[in-house]
């Protein structure tokens, strides 16, 4: 059951991702992207990471994607260029290259090799893991520095974005 769910979600995720690429309309692309974000959130949930799944929806689908769509609207970019002809370009060398990359990644073991795991997902001790408090614990102990740095990053990006976007 779970496997089926995973597979279905995977297919949907792939499908939405493909549609992001193949939509001629930018807005459509963005909308497919939102879908993709959602489905990934679902996958997170399947991995029992509720908090991060919610974060995914809020931050990604909610914030970033809205931001992007807003930008698209603002720039009035409804119809994208011809580069998104779905099938015509499928045998494009670039797709082949990408396919090669994927195959190569698979061959050298991404997703197929044995994994060195400390625990497994079924480990009952780990069920609790994924709770917010553990994450919080991490963030405010070991992860303090990156966490603080993220704030600097965001400040920098805001400062930059404001500078760039503001008119003289």
């Amino acid at each position, binding site marked *: 059951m*779970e496997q089926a769910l*995973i597979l279905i979600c*995977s297919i949907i995720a*792939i499908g939405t*991702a493909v549609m*992001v*690429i193949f939509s001629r309309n*930018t807005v459509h*692309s*963005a909308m497919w*992207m939102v879908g*993709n974000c959602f489905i*990934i959130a679902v*996958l*997170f949930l399947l*991995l029992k990471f509720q908090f*991060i799944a919610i*974060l*995914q929806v809020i*931050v*990604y689908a909610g914030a*970033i994607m809205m*931001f*992007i769509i807003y*930008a698209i609207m603002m*720039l009035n*970019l409804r119809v994208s*260029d011809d*580069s*998104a002809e779905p099938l015509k370009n499928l045998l494009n060398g*670039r*797709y082949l*290259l*990408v396919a090669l*990359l*994927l195959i190569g990644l*698979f061959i050298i073991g*991404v*997703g197929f090799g044995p*994994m060195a795991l*400390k*625990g*497994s*997902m079924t480990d009952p*001790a780990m069920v609790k*893991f994924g709770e917010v408090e*553990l*994450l919080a*614990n*991490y963030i405010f102990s070991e*992860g303090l520095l990156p966490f603080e740095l*993220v704030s600097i*990053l*965001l400040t*920098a*990006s805001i400062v*930059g974005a404001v*500078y*760039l*976007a503001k008119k003289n």
Partner: protein
Amino acid sequence: MAEYQNIYLILSAILFTIGCGGVITRKNAIVVFLCIEIMLGAVNLAFITFSRANSSPEGIFMVMCVMAVAAAEAAVGLAIFVLLYRKTGSINIDKFNLLKW
């Protein structure tokens, strides 16, 4: 559930590659950026999977950071796009090759 993690990984690889493909084919800067976001999403998926597999919180935290980074990049990136659009009326990345050779 252990046997499923490879599915996640494969999915993440596939998504990553699709994002990749998008980046190298689409001309619209925003779509390209979307594709990059797909890649980041794929990476997030991998992190989450491993986090679960390794039962360590680092992966999750990483994912949070990636989200923050994505947001920051989105802000800056879109600002650049807007700037470009203002300047040239287009964000077709193939139109920008003033700098070459």
